[in-house]
Structure formats: C-alpha cells, structure tokens
C-alpha cells in the first residue's frame, strides 16, 4: 500500500472516531451499518502480538503472491487461492503442487476468516499463524524449507525493509507466518446484494425473497447469517463409508479430534461468493449449486449423519430456483475485484 492509502485510512479513522466515538475497549456497533450485517463484536481472536496494521497487511500480501516461497519457485499461496475466484482455484482437488500429487482437499475460499477459530476443512489448525506452515511445508503443495525461505527474505532488501516496518524485526519464521495471517485476516466480504438489502440500501426481487424464506426454513441452522456458516462440523451425508485406518483423510474431523462421533464431519462452508468458488464440498465433488441441492434430496446415511438431515432437505424445483436466486444475492463482486 502506498502512503496515500495510509493517509486515506487515517482520515477515515478520524471521521469514524468523531462520528461514532469508538475510542473505548468496547467493540460498539457501527450505527450506519446495523449489527445485523456484521458481528464485529465477536472478533476476539486477533493475537496481541499480531494486530492488524497497514504495513503488516501489505507485507503479508506480497508474501502471499510470491512464488519464490515454494521449493521450485513456481507455486505461491495465490496459485491455489486466486483472488478472482474468492481465493479458490476452480478445481476439485489440485495437483499443481511441487510433487504433482493430487491433494485430499479442495482449496477453501479465503474471506471473513477473522471470525473463525478452526482452519482446514476438518478444523485442525487453531490460528491462521499456525495454518500457514501446513501448505507452505507440505511436499504436495509448496514444499518449502522454512530456513531457506527465511534466508531468501533476509537477502532481499525490499523484504528486509518491509519486515522492519511491519514488525521491527528482520525476517524469520514467526513473522513470516504472522504477516501472511494478517493479510488473510484483512480479507473481508460483506458487500453483496444481501448485505445492501440488510442495510436498507436495496431490495430483494420476489424470487429472492421467496428464496430467503426457504433458506430460513431449511438451511439457516447450519448456514447461519451473516457469515452463512455456524463454523461447526457436520456430516452432511456425502458418504456411507469412510477410511479404513485412523488418520485416513476420508475420515474428516475424526482424524483431528480422535472422537468417533466426528467421523465424516467437515466444517460448514460459508455460502457467500458461491458464483466464484465452484466446485463444492471438501473434495470438490459437486460442481454446480443445483448438484448440491440435488444431493440434499437423497443424503447418504451413516452413524454421524447430522440429525437435521435424517430425511434430507425436501425442495421442489421452484424452491430450488428461488433458493438459487437468493444465494446469488450473497455474491460479493467487490470482493473478487478488489483484491
């Protein structure tokens, strides 16, 4: 970010502070944008030693797009998390990693992560800082040797300067992870038509309204607004059998929690930005939203199938069309264009 943006931020902050009187430790609702549109007061998980600053976001962004972090200098985080696809890659299971091996999980979209406390489809990583090391080091992804990466950053005068500005430190593994985590925290998506409607700046069409009613009836308990995820883990009936050994990737959250009730459970994804994040599910097996709605006609049974889905989700063809109209109001064009 250039200095013009920083002075822009300072100007805004000043207006914000005067207008709303924010200088207190209470995270108050922002009056112009009703709390129904975003739960900012639920953010509690920004580490004290890694608060958001413009410098840290800029550094994290540079790292996120830097292919030199991978062992073959060809893969960056952005290779599988493309901004124009809400940070997914349009692929079910990628195989562009250094080893060429096909991965076990679909690349999840990156937005509104600041509200989350469990990362990866099975929720293994508790902080964004910790999550960074996973794909960075994985031989099937970026295959990075962290010491080599740190060396590369230290040798680079631009990076050295940026780390000094951001963290008053020379580059190291800890600040590398912190910077990328900070950039990821800055990715926020809440400017879809749905959000504008909730702020009183727009109106749903009749089909969208009808879709919202259906949504509230049949989907809301797991895909809870405004994040459109409850951030919990569910078995939504994709499979009847799972892996034969304990930590088989097919076992979902069980391999993380060790709790047999978690067999086949995955984190509820957000329904925002579906237009950009196909294909769907933890392994990208469903290509279109219609495929997803059809899946819910006949969920597969297993011990840990979510009780709310025992009978699937009954939707007529008209229901499905209206629901899709409503889901389309959750697409945030600004988000995919801005990053």
């Amino acid at each position, binding site marked *: 970010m250039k200095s013009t943006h920083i002075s822009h*931020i300072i100007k805004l*902050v000043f207006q914000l502070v005067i207008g709303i009187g*924010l200088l207190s430790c209470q995270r108050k609702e922002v009056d112009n944008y009703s709390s129904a549109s975003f739960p900012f007061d639920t953010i509690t998980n920004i580490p004290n030693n890694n608060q958001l600053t413009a410098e840290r976001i800029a550094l994290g962004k540079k790292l996120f797009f830097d292919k030199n972090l991978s062992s073959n200098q060809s893969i960056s985080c952005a290779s599988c998390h493309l901004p124009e696809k809400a940070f997914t890659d349009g692929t079910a299971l990628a195989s562009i990693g250094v080893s060429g091996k096909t991965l076990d999980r679909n690349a999840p979209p990156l937005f509104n992560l600041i509200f989350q406390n469990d990362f990866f489809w099975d929720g293994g990583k508790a902080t964004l*800082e910790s999550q960074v*090391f996973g794909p960075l080091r994985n031989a099937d992804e970026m295959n990075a040797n*962290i010491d080599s990466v740190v060396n590369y950053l230290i040798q680079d005068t631009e990076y050295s300067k940026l780390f000094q500005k951001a963290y008053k430190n020379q580059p190291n593994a*800890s600040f590398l*992870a912190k910077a990328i985590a900070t950039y990821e925290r800055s990715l926020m998506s809440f400017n879809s038509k749905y959000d504008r409607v909730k702020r009183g700046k727009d109106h749903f069409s009749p089909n969208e309204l009808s879709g919202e009613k259906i949504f509230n009836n049949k989907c809301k308990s797991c895909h809870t607004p405004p994040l459109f995820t409850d951030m919990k883990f569910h078995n939504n009936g994709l499979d009847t059998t799972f892996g034969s050994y304990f930590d088989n990737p097919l076992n979902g959250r069980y391999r993380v*929690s060790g709790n047999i009730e978690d067999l086949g459970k995955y984190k509820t994804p957000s329904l925002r930005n579906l237009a950009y994040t196909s294909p769907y599910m933890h392994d990208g097996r469903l290509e279109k939203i219609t495929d997803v709605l059809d899946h819910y006609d006949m969920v597969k049974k297993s011990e840990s199938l979510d009780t709310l889905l025992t009978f699937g989700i009954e939707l007529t063809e008209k229901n499905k069309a209206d629901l899709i109209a409503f889901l389309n109001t959750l697409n945030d064009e*600004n988000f995919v264009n801005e990053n």
Partner: protein
Amino acid sequence: MKNSFKMKTLKTLSNKMKTLKYLYISLLAITAIACKKEDEETAPSNDNDNAGSVNIMVQNAMNDGNNEMSDLLLYKQYTNVNGDFLTFSKFKYYISNLQLINEEGDTIDIEESYHLIEVDSTSASKTISLSNIPSGNYSGAIYSIGIDSEANLDESIVEGDLDPSSDMTWNWQVGYKFFNMEGTYSTDETTDGAFIYHLGKNENYRTLFLDFPKSLVISEDQISPAMVHIMADINKLFGEVNVIDADVYNTVKVGPADQVADMVENYEQGFFSVHHIDN
C-alpha cells in the same frame, strides 16, 4: 453529460466500497490499538551479579535386550514391560515451562523454556544449559511434559526448541507432538512389526514436580555451572499404569482415544528422577 455522470457515480460507488473496506479494517485496527494490552512482558532478566548457571542433563534409559537398564540409543534393541522387543528409529519428546523452587518456596521461571529431549545412535542424553539463574539454594523443580496450550495453539511462537518446520509439528493438527517415537518391534506373535507413537494435544499436557535429594546451589562465585543429572526411565512409558502390548498398541497418534489415554496415564505419573546433583 449522462455518461460522465454515470461514470462519476460508478467511481464514487467503487470508492465507497473501497472506503467501506478500509473503514472496517481501520475500525479493527483502531479498536485493536485502543484495546492493545501490554505486549507480553519479558521476565525480568537478572543481568546482575547475583546469578549463576546450571546444566540439566536428562539421560534416557530403558531395559535392554538382556532386561538390564541401559542408555536408550537409536537402532539398539530394548525390552518393554510387556516383554516385547523395541528398536527405536526416532525418540524425542518435549518438556517445557521449567521452574526452579528455592528454599523459601519461591518459584523462578526460566525463559524460552521449551526443550526437545532426543537421542541418537550414540548419545542417550540431552543437556539443557540455563544461565542467569538467581543465586540461591534450590530444593526442587516444576516441569511440564509437552507444550502448554498457548504455544501449542500458535505455531508462530518460535521459542526455545519450538520449531514449526520440524517433524514434531502435526500436519493436520495445530501445534506439536509431545512424544515422537517410531521404530520396529517383535513379539511372540509378530516378527517385523512397526510402531508409531505420536502423542500430543492440549489435554495431555502435564505439570509435575521434581524433588531434589539435596539442595542445588547456584552462586555467582561458582567456577563452573552446577549440574542436575536426571534419569528418564523410559520403561515407565510402557507400563507404569497400563502395560503397552506392542501387538495391540502400535499406531497411537491422535487416536485411538483409549490407547492415547492409556499411554498418557503412564507418563503422567512422571518418569524423571534426580540421579545426583553437582554443586
């Protein structure tokens, strides 16, 4: 005229969207700064003259092929409590959050206290060198097996022997394995079995007390560091409470839950004892 108005409106709208985004990020930043707690205070460093050093040597031992206590080295054969033969290709574990207790009952924290105890094919011991320890007489220590939850939930905390790029981190879980033991085994039933024991997770972190048989004296006048020689009796990991039968317990990682619990129950009794102290 109309077109330029449209362009202006669109530009304003796009700027407004950018503004919104920066607004919210600033909102976070400003409330974060306003609420900024003190950065973790570093423990007051005792850079004065009233301090000395101590080496803590942890020697790992287990019953060998002849059932006699022997240094635990990689690629040699040992016998577990169940009578199974084990050969380790990897043997390491974390202890952390060391504190020394002086004769007044005060506890002294040790900074950067994350220590990886590991053996290789020639050495069964790891020496932890501590300096800047306040002079005094110490009667015991508090130590923990594994990594505390704060460091275990944030891999960007890189202190002591914590290394997020090592094989002690989990691939799918956050944090560290507390024990990483791998190798081969043989029993009456199995001639070439393989074992993997990767034990970790916050709920399995244990804090224990270690009594010193005599006072550990640390003084600024000491000619060389004092020494606490600790014996780590690895037989206990395999049978202090629950007998670990290699044919049954050979792949113990995040699960199966009952096997993890059994092995934790063994190590939570403690397997350290002070062999001797050199002042």
